[in-house]
């Protein structure tokens, strides 16, 4: 019990303050009462003495005649007057010869007091002492105070004549004609003191209790929010969550509660950010791991593919046209081409491709890509463009920027039900501050080019949001997508030291924001695509098995002024060429096509018209030997995907050199 009390005292701030205050007020109240009573006691005692002196002097003055004449009757009134005073309980008057003239006492005082046994035995010394004093003399006893005063008279005139002019006579001497003795009881004083003491005690007690009750409620009002705060802190420490602490008061405690609430909100927000960052980091690590794995596999697999393609082509050269194996080998070659494209994308994702990064101003590339998209996407999709002209450059490969736009916009178009919706592409320069940077693991403070692609399509489900950049992850039906589009974009962006932020809501659409770090570099005029692109009016046969690409190629080439004839198969292209081989000035063919590879087609066309220049487009060129290209009449190989300026310069270079 005692230990509990001590513990409560030690641990309870409110209890401690309350007890300390109560003890303090108790000590102050009763200390004050003590001092008050002490001084009051002294004052009352002094007042009693003063009163006694006055009474004795008054009696001495009023009893002059009675004492002088020793007339008891004349002394009656003065003595009775003194007896009116409550404290006076005995009055004795003496004549000049120290004989008692009057000795009156109240019946209810001093009956048992031994002091009165020897009351009348007064030594002459006392009388001498009193006679020597002008003022009243008092003797303090236990229960009473005794006051003595002398009765003084003016000396009688020496002769009768002087009575005629007493006023004219010199000062006459005073003489003592008797003594007055007044006894004042201390009983009344004690009674008054006791009464005063009890009243003071009651008042002190009342004030103390009132003060304690008041401070109890004051402390309660102070401690309550503190307790709530303490509970909140404990709950935060134990469970990590806490209800909002009420902060009604506008005082320091209210401010503390406010501060705690703010701190909790801040912690919650930071935890969420931390979690998000952790997820981002985890995702980045995952992507990095996948990229490393895929890159490694793709690299080795690419070499294997080179061997397969090489030997397949050799085999095709060694067998006759009628050999039934020829069809099977062409299938091998076609499958190998697809595998090559896939490997190329995996390498792009894993950032292990060998494209060089250069300072690039991406706004022209974005504009060009969007123009191409307008031609290829259904007219029901509204495309908006907000490209702000800027001199800011980023470190990238222009063709890969083009690929990013194409892939994102294609995905956006696919996400729109019934091919209806809005697609918005914007590019702006911005500065990422510390606060924004702190919310994203990959972002750092600095200047960025932000590329935003927004669509109001179906949106991405939250449960797959963290997988959209995984290679081969696709929501499209079988055969409709490789699942490498976003993975490739991720690889390109990471290679550019950029960051992708995706936000999506089901039914509302998605927004992809890509942040490319801006650099300070001069852009070569050669990279300014649309300014001085070489044009021409020659007729070109363009072959690619993918309709989207063949449309893209036709758009570019026609934009450059060329006459374009397209074919989606190698066989179709060969027939077109055979029919009018003299009208064509150039052939541009894809490498990997079903039925016949671009290399085979080039050899067929070279056989028909050895002079005609051929450009081979391929996603991966390591499998094609120089010998084979020369044999097939291929003048130049262009890596897919290519930018407009690449194909424009390549065509012009080949045409001009072949003339």
């Amino acid at each position, binding site marked *: 019990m005692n230990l509990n009390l001590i513990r409560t005292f030690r641990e309870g701030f409110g209890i401690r303050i309350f007890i300390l205050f109560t003890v303090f007020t108790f000590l102050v109240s009763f200390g004050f009462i003590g001092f008050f009573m002490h001084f009051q006691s002294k004052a009352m005692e002094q007042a009693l003495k003063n009163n006694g002196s006055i009474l004795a002097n008054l009696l001495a003055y009023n009893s002059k*005649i009675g004492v*002088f*004449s020793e007339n008891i009757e*004349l002394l009656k009134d003065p003595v009775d007057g003194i007896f009116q005073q409550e404290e006076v309980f005995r009055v004795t008057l003496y004549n000049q010869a120290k004989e008692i003239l009057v000795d009156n006492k109240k019946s209810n005082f001093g009956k048992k007091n031994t002091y009165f046994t020897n009351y009348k035995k007064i030594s002459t010394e006392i009388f001498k002492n009193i006679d020597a004093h002008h003022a009243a003399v008092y003797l303090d006893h236990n229960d009473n105070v005794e006051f003595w005063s002398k009765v003084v008279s003016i000396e009688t005139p020496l002769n009768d004549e002087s009575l005629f*002019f007493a006023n004219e006579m010199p000062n006459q001497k005073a003489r003592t*004609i008797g003594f007055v003795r007044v006894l004042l009881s201390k009983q009344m004083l004690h009674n008054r003191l006791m009464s005063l003491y009890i009243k003071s005690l009651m008042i002190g007690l009342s004030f103390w209790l009132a003060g304690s009750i008041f401070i109890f409620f004051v402390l309660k009002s102070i401690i309550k929010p503190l307790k709530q705060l303490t509970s909140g802190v404990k709950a935060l420490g134990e469970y990590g969550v806490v209800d909002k602490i009420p902060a009604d008061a506008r005082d320091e405690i209210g401010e503390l509660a406010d501060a705690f609430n703010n701190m909790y909100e801040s912690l919650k927000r930071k935890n969420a950010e931390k979690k998000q960052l952790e997820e981002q980091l985890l995702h980045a690590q995952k992507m990095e791991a996948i990229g490393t794995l895929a890159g490694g596999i793709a690299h080795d697999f690419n070499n294997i593919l080179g061997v397969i393609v090489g030997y397949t082509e050799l085999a095709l050269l060694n067998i006759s046209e009628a050999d039934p194996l020829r069809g099977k080998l062409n299938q091998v070659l076609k499958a190998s081409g697809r595998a090559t494209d896939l490997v190329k994308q995996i390498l792009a994702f894993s950032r292990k491709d060998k494209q060089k990064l250069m300072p690039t101003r991406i706004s022209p590339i974005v504009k060009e890509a969007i123009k191409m998209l307008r031609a290829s996407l259904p007219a029901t999709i509204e495309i908006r463009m907000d490209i702000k002209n800027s001199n800011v450059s980023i470190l990238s490969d222009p063709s890969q920027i083009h690929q990013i736009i194409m892939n994102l916009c294609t995905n956006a178009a696919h996400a729109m039900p019934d091919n209806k919706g809005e697609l918005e592409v914007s590019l702006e320069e911005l500065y990422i501050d510390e606060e924004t940077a702190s919310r994203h693991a990959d972002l750092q403070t600095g200047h960025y080019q932000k590329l935003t692609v927004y669509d109001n399509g179906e949106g991405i489900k939250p449960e797959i949001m963290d997988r959209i950049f995984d290679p081969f992850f696709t929501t499209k039906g079988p055969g409709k997508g490789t699942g490498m589009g976003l993975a490739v974009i991720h690889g390109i962006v990471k290679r550019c030291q950029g960051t992708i932020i995706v936000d999506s809501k089901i039914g509302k659409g998605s927004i992809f924001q890509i942040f490319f770090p801006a650099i300070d570099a001069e852009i070569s005029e050669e990279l300014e695509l649309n300014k001085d692109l070489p044009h021409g009016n020659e007729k070109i046969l363009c072959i690619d098995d993918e309709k989207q690409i063949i449309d893209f190629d036709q758009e570019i080439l026609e934009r450059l002024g060329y006459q374009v004839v397209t074919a989606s198969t190698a066989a179709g292209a060969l027939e077109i060429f055979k029919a009018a081989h003299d009208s064509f000035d150039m052939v541009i063919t894809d490498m990997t096509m079903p039925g016949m590879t671009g290399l085979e087609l080039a050899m067929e066309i070279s056989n028909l018209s050895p002079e005609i220049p051929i450009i081979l487009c391929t996603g991966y060129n390591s499998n094609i030997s120089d010998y084979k290209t020369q044999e097939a009449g291929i003048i130049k190989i262009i890596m897919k995907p290519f930018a407009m300026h690449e194909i424009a310069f390549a065509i012009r270079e080949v045409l001009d050199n072949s003339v």
Partner: protein
Amino acid sequence: MKIYVLIVTMSILFCSVTAVSAQKILAVQSIRVAPYEEALKGFESVCKLHVRRLVLSDYKNIDIANEIKSLHPDMILAIGVTALAKVKHIRKIPIIYFMVLDPKSVISSGEKNISGVSMNIPQKDQLAVIVNLFPDIKDIGIIYNPKKTSFIIKRAETAAWNTGINLIKKTVNTPKNVASRMMEMQGKIDLFWLIPDSTVLTPETIKFLFLFSMNNKIPIIAFSKNYLGIGALLSIGIDSYDIGRQAGELGNTFFTTNNKNLFNQHIDARRPVVSLNKKIANKLGIKINKNNANAFGGIDESEFN
């Protein structure tokens, strides 16, 4: 040292007096009080001679009588009873006293060279004033010490007998008995007659007497104006200046006739000064018949009204 100074001073004094007049008068005065001064002025106003003064209270432990003899004055004026007592043994120089209440108590042996005017206003004159002003008064109380003022009482008794007043007398030997004697007269007297008796009149008894007077509505007739202020209704006092003049007339008679037989004359003060305290009269409810005041020269009311 003081003695030599005194002798030298006296010698110079008398040399100068001799130069002016042949008669040398030495006034021996008991103390320096205003009534004595006024009385001396009264003397000088009648007896136009050079008077030189000797105030006894200024000299102590000196045999004044011998000193006076050595100065050979032609006449000695004894002003006050102390002065009279000091010079009464001088036989060869005529002595005139004044401002003495009962000269016979001092010169009982009947010295022939001493004449004078007492302070006593004849009791019959005083009673006449009382009767005139208070015609209804019948019983008058009086307290006295027979050893001191019996001469006054005897005269008062005679006067009372003649005027039909009942004089109720109480004697005291000590002041202590005054109060009880006064109380004994309660309800028996119409008026209390205060006489100049130092046994009766002490500071305590005076207070008591006047307190008693107020409580019992007994008017007090005093012998000095001084008592009006503390509660006396009326005072029949002396006129110091006139007493001096009376003494001066005696001196003149002596010097003009040079008849030694004219000495040994002892006369009373002739002019009573009657003063009234109207406030006390009003408080006591006493009506005064002022119409009869002309018989004794009127009433002085100015001081206490």
